């Protein structure tokens, strides 16, 4: 941490050096790193230790893979994850282009339909699909009324619904990742291609596609990594033949006999995830995880790699020509508007898949029927009354609010300090530190939950509000760090210098210049950290007790037990919360963009 002071000839009094060292912004990283070391790294290391603690180091792993069930499930998990990532890419790319090409209010609307679901809990979005595809759901009704089916059939609980549900849940992630790489492109590049005589298709094939390839890669891998650890959606939408790897861990979590064996399963999942991320990071740069640009200046290593890139690219271009040109010539016969219509069609489909389930659930929450049916026979507020008068729901609601507020508080304090440390210090290894701070995003929540469970048992934190809030803050911290580092990088340091030179002390500079400038980011980060905790289910499954129930936990219990419109009420309230948050954040985000 004292790398900044190395090499300074010290002809100054010693206490001055000490003061300078204490003022080193790198020290601001300490709280967050200490927090993560205790509640995140330590449990993960412990998890690995337990998994290796059998008679021989590999005995638990051998036991796991001796049972065909687990091997099959691992293969299945990979298949499902690759398929989902592929589907997301196929439908996500046109959608990203659609957002990019539309203008004005249309663009805002389309972007909102993508972003809104992104912030709604996975549990609720999965529930919406259960409603949509249920026996009395709108899809069955539609098919029957069209005469395709003679009577409602079971559409749920098969591989298809798992793929559909997971794709729908993960699509926004893909669209936003690709969109950020499309939006970063210089508009004039496509125009230059067109002006040079390339048709729209050729311009797409030789300019747009190659330049957005890193974005596509990042999106594919992010979705893939998220899918590997998926647990909620396959549990609710899949049948017995669709068990994913993460599900085994939760199913066995309660049995004491599986100590060691269970950890070994977790380590397998963790290893696969980290291996994929490591390989991806090698090619794309680890910034793909948080969708940011490099924090440090380009290293010599990066330029070396660029030289290697050229070779790979020219081979890629040769291959693209070989396959592409005959195809292009073929498609070139089609009218030019075909491309536009393909994008509109696929984008439209994506928007429908993302927004329809939410709308259906919101309508059903006002249903007067005592069971789930769509369209509702009549409208009433009876389910809202039931929700607000049920002390169990209310208690869970308040618990969630308190936990989320505490968790957001922890994440904001630690995350802001860490972001200041990472942006303002001259510490070496910034990328590695950033990677560590952001890494909780990619660790499968199931693995994190399992590792935290033993830590919480040891320190008697299971069922404590503070413990749960701290656990949620592990995931909230990366959100805060990413948003605030970006915000801090956008702060004009000359404004701070201007304040300092005209007499403001460091604290005054922070209060009067830095804080107002990062306020929008701070507000957004607070909201997202709050939402992260408010929606969190998987860690909560491991760490809560009978006395401590959060809203998602109650929902989870009810969805598995009986599907009723009270769940739709909770979902509607959540959607309203997210919408309100986004509306509140909008002007703030808009001004921040203008300032930058």
């Amino acid at each position, binding site marked *: 941490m004292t790398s900044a002071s190395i090499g*300074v*000839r010290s*002809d*100054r009094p010693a206490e*001055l050096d000490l003061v*300078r060292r204490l003022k080193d912004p790198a020290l601001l990283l300490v709280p967050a790193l200490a927090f993560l070391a205790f509640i995140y790294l330590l449990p993960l290391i412990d998890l690995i230790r337990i998994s290796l603690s059998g008679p021989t180091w590999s005995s638990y792993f051998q036991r796991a893979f001796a049972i065909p069930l687990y091997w099959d499930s691992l293969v299945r998990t990979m298949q499902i994850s690759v398929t989902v990532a592929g589907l997301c890419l196929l439908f996500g790319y046109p959608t990203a282009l659609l957002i990019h090409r539309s203008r004005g209010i249309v663009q805002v609307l389309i972007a909102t339909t993508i972003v809104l679901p992104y912030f709604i809990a996975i549990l609720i979005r999965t529930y919406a699909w259960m409603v949509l595809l249920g026996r009395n759901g709108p899809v069955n009704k539609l098919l029957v009324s069209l005469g395709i089916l003679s009577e409602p059939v079971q559409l749920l609980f098969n591989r298809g619904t798992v793929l559909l549900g997971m794709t729908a849940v993960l699509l926004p992630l893909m669209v936003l990742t690709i969109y950020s790489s499309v939006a970063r492109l210089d508009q004039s590049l496509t125009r230059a291609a067109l002006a040079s005589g390339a048709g729209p298709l050729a311009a797409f094939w030789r300019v747009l596609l190659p330049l957005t390839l890193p974005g596509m890669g990042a999106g594919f891998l992010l979705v893939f990594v998220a899918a590997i650890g998926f647990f909620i959606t396959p549990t609710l939408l899949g049948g017995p033949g669709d068990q994913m790897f993460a599900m085994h861990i939760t199913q066995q979590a309660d049995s004491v006999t599986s100590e060691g064996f269970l950890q070994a399963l977790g380590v397998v999942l963790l290893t696969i995830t980290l291996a994929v991320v490591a390989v991806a990071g090698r090619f794309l740069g680890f910034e793909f995880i948080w969708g940011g640009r490099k924090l440090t200046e380009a290293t010599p290593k990066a330029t070396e790699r660029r030289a290697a890139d050229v070779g790979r690219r020219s081979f890629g271009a040769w291959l693209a020509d070989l396959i592409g040109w005959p195809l292009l010539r073929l498609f070139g016969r089609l009218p030019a508007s075909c491309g536009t219509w393909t994008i509109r069609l696929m984008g439209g489909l994506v928007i429908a898949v993302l927004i329809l389930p939410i709308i259906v659930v919101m309508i059903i929450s006002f249903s007067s029927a005592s069971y789930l049916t769509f369209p509702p026979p009549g409208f009433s507020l009876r389910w809202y009354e039931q929700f607000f008068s049920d002390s169990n729901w209310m208690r869970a609601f308040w618990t969630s609010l308190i936990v989320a507020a505490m968790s957001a508080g922890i994440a904001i304090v630690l995350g802001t300090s860490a972001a200041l440390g990472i942006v303002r210090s001259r510490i070496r290894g910034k990328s590695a530190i950033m990677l560590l701070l952001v890494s909780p995003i990619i660790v499968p929540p199931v693995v994190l939950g399992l590792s935290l469970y033993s830590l919480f048992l040891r320190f008697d934190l299971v069922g404590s509000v503070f413990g749960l809030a701290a656990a949620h803050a592990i995931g909230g911290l990366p959100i805060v760090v990413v948003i605030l580092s970006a915000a801090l990088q956008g702060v*004009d340091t*000359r*404004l701070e*210098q*201007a*304040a*300092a*030179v*005209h*007499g*403001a*002390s*460091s604290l*005054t*500079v922070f209060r*009067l*210049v830095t804080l*107002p*400038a990062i306020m929008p980011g701070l507000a957004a980060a607070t909201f997202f950290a709050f939402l992260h905790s408010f929606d969190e289910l998987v860690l909560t499954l491991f760490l809560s007790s009978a006395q401590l129930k959060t809203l998602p936990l109650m929902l989870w219990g009810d969805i598995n037990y009986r599907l009723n419109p009270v769940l739709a009420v909770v979902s509607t309230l959540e959607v309203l919360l997210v919408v309100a948050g986004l509306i509140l954040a909008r002007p703030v985000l808009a001004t921040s963009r203008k*300032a930058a």
Partner: protein
Amino acid sequence: MGEPAALRAMRSGDASARMSLTGRLRERDAIGSSIAVREAVKTYGSFHAVDRISIDIEPGEFITLLGPSGSGKTTLLNLVAGFQSLDSGEILVDGRPVHNVPTHKRGFGMVFQSYALFPNMTVSQNVAFPLRMAGVDRATADRRVAETLEIMRLTEHATKSPSQMSGGQQQRVAIARAIVKRPKVVLMDEPLSALDRRLRESIQIEIRDLHQTIGSTILFVTHDQGEALTMSDRIAVLNAGRIVQIGRPLDIYRHPTDRFVASFVGESNLIEAEILQKRGSTLTMKNRAGYVFSAESRDTIDVGRATVLVRPERIAVSNEAAANSAPISVTSAIFLGEILRIEARMEGGEPLLIRCTDMANRPLPAVGDRLHVSWGAADCWVLA
């Protein structure tokens, strides 16, 4: 490049405005501090941004740090401001070391290239900022802010937000903020480079007049040599982390110490010539084209070869050959308004740049035209 003359004219035309400006400030509230930089060193890895620079700045002096980008001028300014800390050496203000004093306690004013106005404050709040930080009471502060806004002709903009103003207005607000406290030292970091040419010239004059009025020591950083020549009492030319030459604008322009200064400040012809003989202080020299001319020498040089600086505007051009003239052939001629800029080659192929006033009733020289040039001993400056 012709700017000084034009500006002198503008300045004399603006005299009445300046008088009223001076009149409004009855006395010099602040007299500048002396600044001394001793053996200042700042390195980044193996890069010597500031390499043992020493400079003495008189109280109330307007001194310009001039140099290309990467020459260390901005680093030196940042060291004086306290944004960066010295690796070694010291900085004294009025004889007291300040290099360990935090920026906010140095009591300077500063104008930034990017204006650096606080976007969350109005114009008057921005200007009041240094007073607020100094704990000046509200009534006094209000009065001082109003006074300063008036000087900078910003009174009607007091309640605006900086983003509602034009670049020139924003820069005047930034200047107002820098001088509102009547600081003994005002630092200016390329304050005019974001403005368009016309605005730049008028604010140059405004800053120059302001300096006369408030008497602060001004340390001004620029890469624009015209700006440096117009505004400064003295110019320090920097290159590669060192001060190459320091002196009055006229001396820097007429008597540069080396090729770098000669070519960075103003346009120049650097002519390699052989010394034929030395008689008294006059050298007789011959260049590669065989043109023989005389030059006033400094005592150190008497034999061998030397580089001679001939400013393009000191070269006389004529259509006819004369006794002491050399033929040239025109490679380009550009009409710039009041002057002509002619590029040509001498017989040895040596390029020559000429700036001459527009010649009445004469057509613009065409490419390939043969002309005859000459210069006298007083028009040359022999470089070391």
